[in-house]
């Protein structure tokens, strides 16, 4: 009885036609290709700067932090005038100096 009911349900699914299969396979392949396309680009011509550089010692960490301050200011450069940028950059570096002594 249960099997008959299940068979009825299965029949409710439209009969697949060859065209449907072709569209399905083509669509699925295109999707997979598009998904993997960036990866193929990166594998062919790697632009990633890996491997990741580990922080090699206290000095390197602080140089990194200093670099971050300067780059952060650079981001804001377009919004601020040149003299303001310089004052801000110097203020950040001075504020950072006690940290170097620690």
């Amino acid at each position, binding site marked *: 009885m249960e099997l008959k009911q299940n068979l009825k*349900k299965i029949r409710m699914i439209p009969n697949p036609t060859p065209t449907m299969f072709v569209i399905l396979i083509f669509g699925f392949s295109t999707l997979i290709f598009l*998904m993997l396309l960036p990866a193929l680009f990166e*594998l062919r011509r790697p632009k990633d700067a*890996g491997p990741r550089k580990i922080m*090699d010692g*206290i000095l390197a960490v602080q140089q990194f932090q200093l670099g971050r301050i300067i780059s952060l200011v650079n981001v804001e450069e377009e919004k601020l005038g040149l003299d303001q940028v310089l004052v801000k950059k110097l203020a950040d570096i001075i504020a950072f100096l006690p940290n170097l002594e620690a």
Partner: protein
Amino acid sequence: MTAEILEILFIILTALIMAYLIRHFTFTLTVLNHAYKRKKIAPTKNTVFQPTISILIPARNEERVIGRILQRMTELTYPRNKMQVIVIDDGSTDSTGKITEEYAEAYTCIKVIHRKQWEGGQGKASALNTGMKLAKGEIIFCFDADYYPQRDIIERLAKEFADPKVGAVQGRVTVLNEPLNLVTRLVALERTGGYRVDQQARDRLGLVTQFGGTVGGLRRDLLESLGGWDESILAEDTDLTFRVYLAGYKIRYVNDAECYEEAVESWRDYWKQRHRWAEGHMKCAFKHSFKFLKSSSLGLKEKIDGLLLLNVYFMPILVLFSWIIGVPLFFLRSSQWFRILWASIPFSLYSFVGNFAPFFEVGIGTYLDGRNRAQWLIPLLIFTFLYNILICTKAFVDLLVSKITGKNNNHWERTVHSGNGNSYIWN
């Protein structure tokens, strides 16, 4: 009737997959939230805690890489009078013993234990237990022979032991030979998600941080009270993680204590390594799950996370199982709510692609590392995910066979290190 049983099974599997999905999503949001809150540069912690330490380096036929780590040990910034380096030459047949002896002669802080060939090759846990007998430091650190830490890594890790509740500490592992080929690139992505996001989130949320068996350390008195490393388990690090928590201690993860590793370079080596991890991890699940649930020293969130962590290597198998029973059920049972449950397929893909650090964790990890271009490779993690389904299934079958036949298949498949990472360090 059969369909009903399958349906109940399917519901349970979907619930499990959802639990992992929520867990990983919470981890990702936690780390992302933490990163955004750090608008100002985080002040350097000035905690100075420098106990005496012993560093154990087990090595078996590692002539291509052992000199590199020993040279690095001599360059560490930790006070030399508080540091002892013990190399366990585990019955090597190449020139590992000779290289280590040269370093031991030149530097008094480096000691070498030579195990005879019949003693060696019994696994990392066995070698570490041998090294532990000679260790005098309050804290015992472990590094694999192919690793290469930053100079001040010990200071960064050791300071966590200022808290008496901390029993062990773990640093971050970064892949050195990443640009070599597709396998190393994908392993690097998995490591980024696993450490930068997964481990860090577990540490921040006060859950079960994992001791990885290398780039980390433990209190010597705790290790001795636990009876050292369990030589009968292939995943001796996971086993120790759970024993540390059961003993009432915590494990901290320090993201800015970084160390390079040489990742496996071929799919064959990837299989060997992951198979060892999976089988060992599954054994740990059988050993610790019940004890962890019963423990009175652990909170509810630690228990839940611990169970999810212990059973993570079963999940690829369960995901495969849910797909297999999901397809016939879709045609046999067509109730509306069941069709919603069938969404377990995208859920499981969403949750597990990229092995055990899902792709969104890897994506956020690379983003926080400032490596947006590496994200382009993330779709390829589908291949490691599918590969891991096979690996975990094989490991589970092997474990079952060993349980049934009573033969303890504890053979340690050593990862071969080619030394290809040297060029990235020296240049």
